[in-house]
């Protein structure tokens, strides 16, 4: 069936909005910022859609663009990612439920590189090869990073909340690895 460019764009938004929005929300910790990032991501991705080599890799490709969009256009987001600001993470809608709160808070406390891999693995159930494509790393690295991320999440859920700011504001990002700009 013939679809206009506009209709194809709208179909694209319908197909990938939920995945991108969840990922951006989990990575930035703010729904409002995530909405801006996702909008930006769709616009940029549509402009350079010819660069998409394989239609099956559309989600990893969109994730790459979204990840760069966070850094390029919204520098404060990278701060959010590094600091793990508890107040912002409190924006999660169902944070009142204990278990959920634990996971959400735990996710905010782990390193961003671990958070990324978990977001892709948990939210989209993405295969290793696609996660590797999305994060621009080797597939073997994905497996090891996923294992470490899972451990980190478990630890963050079981260990008491030690807010870096409360303990030592200057060492707030000491044990948190920042996402590297590729």
């Amino acid at each position, binding site marked *: 069936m013939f679809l206009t460019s506009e209709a194809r764009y709208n179909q694209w938004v*319908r197909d990938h*909005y*939920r995945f991108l929005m969840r990922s951006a929300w*989990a990575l930035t910790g703010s729904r409002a910022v995530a*909405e801006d990032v996702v*909008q930006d991501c769709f616009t940029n991705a549509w402009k350079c859609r010819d660069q998409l080599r394989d239609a099956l890799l559309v989600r990893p490709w969109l994730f790459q663009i979204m990840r760069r969009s966070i850094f390029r256009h919204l520098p404060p987001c990278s701060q959010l990612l590094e600091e793990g600001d508890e107040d912002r993470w409190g924006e999660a809608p*169902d944070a009142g439920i204990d278990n959920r709160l634990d*996971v959400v808070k735990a996710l905010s406390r782990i390193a961003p590189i671990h958070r990324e891999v*978990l977001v892709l693995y*948990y939210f989209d159930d993405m295969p290793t090869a696609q996660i590797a494509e999305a994060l621009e790393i080797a597939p073997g690295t994905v497996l090891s990073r996923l294992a470490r991320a899972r451990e980190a999440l478990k630890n963050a859920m079981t260990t008491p909340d030690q807010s870096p700011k409360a303990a030592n504001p200057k060492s707030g990002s000491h044990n948190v690895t920042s996402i590297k700009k590729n």
Partner: protein
Amino acid sequence: MSHRNTEDEFDLCARAELSLAYEPGEAPAKLFRNTPWLSRRWVQTSCVLALVASTVLGGVLAVRPPELVRGAIEHEYYERTLRGSFMEASTLLSHLGLESSRPVPGYPQLMRPCDIDGKLAYHLTTFFEKGGIVTVFAFDKPISLKEEQGWWNDVYWQVVTSRDGRPLVLISEKKKALAVAYRVFSLPPA
């Protein structure tokens, strides 16, 4: 094995809880593109094309001569190189509204009866020294053509009323030749 099961269970729980915590809902309307009809490129292009086409068509219709004149122009085109005298000069002159005893105006190139759109016509092609080649058509039966002039198919044309009050069709490649022919065939003798 037990470790693996625990891992799967943990993943399952984490996935479920995170999915519930980060529920984005449906995409907001602002993300979708909805260009108004008039702002769409193809609609604008179509409007411009329609405007150009109607302007061109209107222009063509405005300069298009009556059907009989168009037939005469086509006839003149096909007989432009034909030369000869195929009828009596006096008969031709009488149909042109001129005195049959006088000579044919200019240097006659072609005199013949012909058929234009099913109407019998008398065809005179003559050369005026101070204008050029002109073709004159007089019709056997009364026809209704009002006096007007124009340009069509790369020739100038003019409908004039002959001295005896019948319409004549003049055709020439040069406008100046038409002016000379008009003086000869339409205006009363000085």
